[in-house]
């Protein structure tokens, strides 16, 4: 179990070096992306001006306040509360994000499935688990909302955050097909019969 501090963006080799249970802290640019953002990008032909090559995206739709564009808030938005949403709903966008935009890291909660594992293996990427629901803490890692694109989808816009000490995050899916979610899930299913027996029920 190793710890890595990344200044974003990173290369393929950096992503492939990560193993399950390693931890990572990010600095620099981080993109925020959500259901509607990706539906519009991958189903409705919209594009973004942002260069996401080698970058990380976090599954989020933040609470923000419009304060007008200033040096401290170049996007015009001040962050209020930035947290992370359940990744599973956005499973089918992992591969296009990686292949079309060069994304290397997906940050989320609850994990992704086999299709994403395959994409991480084929293209070279990882999934980092953040603690869902710990948004007050996560917000303290975000220095600024630098820019925003596709803002007609607000709050599901494409956000460009500048972060400092964003982590530690847990490598829970790596580029070798490993997934802590699959491991935990399989172990839990193995305990199903015993749990049912404790309730006086014979497992079917």
């Amino acid at each position, binding site marked *: 179990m190793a710890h890595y501090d990344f200044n974003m963006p990173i290369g393929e080799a950096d992503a492939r070096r990560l193993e399950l249970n390693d931890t990572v802290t990010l600095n620099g640019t981080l993109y925020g992306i959500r259901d509607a953002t990706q539906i519009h990008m991958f189903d409705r032909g919209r594009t973004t001006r942002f260069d996401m090559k080698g970058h990380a995206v976090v599954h989020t*739709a933040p*609470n923000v306040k419009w304060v007008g564009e200033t040096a401290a808030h170049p996007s015009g938005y001040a962050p209020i509360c930035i947290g992370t949403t359940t990744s599973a709903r956005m499973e089918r966008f992992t591969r296009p994000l990686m292949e079309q935009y060069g994304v290397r890291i997906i940050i989320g909660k609850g994990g992704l499935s086999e299709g994403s594992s395959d994409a991480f293996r084929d293209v070279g990427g990882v999934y980092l688990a953040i603690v869902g629901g710990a948004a007050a803490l996560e917000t303290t890692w975000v220095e600024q909302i630098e820019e925003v694109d596709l803002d007609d989808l607000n709050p599901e816009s494409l956000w460009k955050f500048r972060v400092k000490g964003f982590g530690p995050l847990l490598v829970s899916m790596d580029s070798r097909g490993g997934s802590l979610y699959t491991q*935990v899930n399989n*172990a839990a299913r193995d305990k199903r019969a015993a749990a*049912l027996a404790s*309730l006086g029920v014979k497992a079917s």
Partner: protein
Amino acid sequence: MKVDLKEVEEACKELYIRALKLLPPDIKDGFKRLDATETDATGKAILGTMIRNIKVAEENQNLLCQDTGIPIYNVTIGSDVEVDGYKLKQAIVKGCERATQEHPLRSSVVHPVTRKNQHTSSGRRVPVINLDFVEDSETLSIEMIPKGSGSENNSWLKMAVPADGIDAVKTFVVDCVLDAGGKTCPPTIVGVGVGGTADLCVHLSKIAATRPLGSHCEDPEGARLEAELSSAVNQLGVGPQGLGGDSTSFAVHVETAATHITMNPVAVNMQCHSARRARATFTPKGLSYGF
């Protein structure tokens, strides 16, 4: 007691913001209990981060979680309370909208077909307003629950048949916890509705999921099920955030209702670790806030 609707509107605004920022004491105690017994290193570290987040939210007066949820207002009206029901509902909606625009909060509510967001946390039939009445009381109580989607997306209904018996109910709850995995932000409160009609069964599961920790089902059969199921689901090892550990659920809560001779419905609704709720109580002595 005559109700001042301006005061109700103000309280409904305040309630939404309070609920998002302050975790009820019973949930904090629940965290302490889980943290003391968790044996998995990853699970323990995650619980530690969650506990730290509660403190950071209080210190920075920030929201515990970014998901402002679907707003639910549970209103209990005493029989000696004088209020225009229609105007009461209007005041609640107004308070909810003002919280969203004045704080401001992320509006998480969209039209189900157009997906258009009015940026008020309200829309057709939302906020959800549930009304109940109690006898001989000069008290108006409003409970506010911002129901996050991570947990709400993990909701299930099964119309089991009488021949499947209570075993079907127990098996269903265990399987729902397995299916939810980390998606519900465990540790959760697993709410189980048993009996009723399909819609009542689902509603009961929501009442169960949002009840304070330490409370028990008034029906002794339900209370027995709660105890058995609470220990069973925590044998599965799903753990905090679904990354393994002993702390899968704070508790399983059950609510029951009579049902049809041919029916055996069971519903599961979950509440995540950000088990937020806030309460305003109006009495002749004035307004007070709690949980």
